[in-house]
């Protein structure tokens, strides 16, 4: 019975981590848009390449934030959550 409970905890954490990484879709699309527009801008005005590139990298790094929220949650669910959940389960076992 205990093995089953721990198995459910591990499975739930793994599925949750996988779902959390869906957050990567948004920044992917957003950064793709940003780079596409930057390429267009450089194509139109090649002399402004430096300014456009640095602004684009800055914007990309900020657009990444929401994806990183998902990543942090995923890492927590894989490396931190299982052991603490199992600990909670162990401390609540009926004696």
């Amino acid at each position: 019975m205990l093995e089953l409970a721990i198995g459910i905890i591990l499975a739930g954490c793994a599925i949750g981590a996988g779902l959390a990484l869906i957050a990567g879709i948004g920044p992917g699309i957003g950064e793709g848009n940003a780079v596409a527009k930057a390429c267009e801008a450089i194509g139109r005005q090649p002399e402004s390449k430096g300014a456009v590139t640095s602004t684009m990298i800055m914007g990309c790094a900020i657009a990444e934030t929401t994806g990183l929220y998902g990543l942090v949650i995923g890492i927590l669910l894989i490396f931190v959550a299982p052991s603490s959940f199992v600990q909670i389960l162990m401390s609540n076992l009926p004696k």
Partner: protein
Amino acid sequence: MTKERKDKLIDWLYLAMVILPYVICMVLKVLTTPGGEGISITGAHIYFEIPMPLMNLCITEVQATSVAVIISIFGLCLYMTHGIKVVPNTKRQLIAEWVVEKVNGLIKDNMGNRYMAFAPFIAAIMAISAFSSLSSLLGLFPPTSDMNIVAGWAILVFILITYYKLKGGLFPYVKGFFEPVPVFAPFNIIGEIATPVSMSFRHYGNVLSGVVISTLVASALNGLSQMLFSWLPGFLKDIPLLRVGLPAILSVYFDIFSGLMQAFIFAMLTMLYIATGFPEEEYEKRQAKKKKKKALPAA
């Protein structure tokens, strides 16, 4: 002892101050890391705990490394500015002047002339963040991949931002939460709290993801080289040959580019938040009122 020799000795002392903290940290890490099977992804290694009323205060390798980074930056500053002259004749003075000029230009471009006094603070944030992220190149646990360190900086910056917002008076600050309509108040408060959270998560998540991916790649190469080179004789088959050099390619992006980028973005966001949060008109009005009040009794 002549003056030249004295100067040279002081230079060497400063250089030792730059390098020794890292060496001490590396020795500490090698001595205290528990030997285990394979590669594992864990948090910072805890050296010892100090009992405190609410929770034990853990002294981890992250604290040790960040103190080392601070001492090292201090030593670097002393070394760069030692023996400066009006007309520079050493390379390091030129480098120091270049850094100061760049930071001043950055502040002038992004914040305006009013905030020139912020240059040392912004440069300090940038330097400590960049050097902390780069310390992973020496095999240390980068302090920026620990939430506690980055959250501390973010809270510091948040207090600074709030202080500058309050310079226009308490009433306009509180009123700012009820705009455009009072219904938006909860959202505005959440948005205000989200500032330090997002700043710290952005920085810490970027560096931590680099650490995790590098570790995973290293362990994968470990297994692969064990599989491929198991026919080699003697001790040669125990050495993970594929791990020599290959992870360095990843480290160029994750450690150098990502670390420096996040340092720049953290400083940039600090500048922008302070410059946009400061209510310039209200502050001017307040100053004018104060001046009038002061002038009245004299008249």
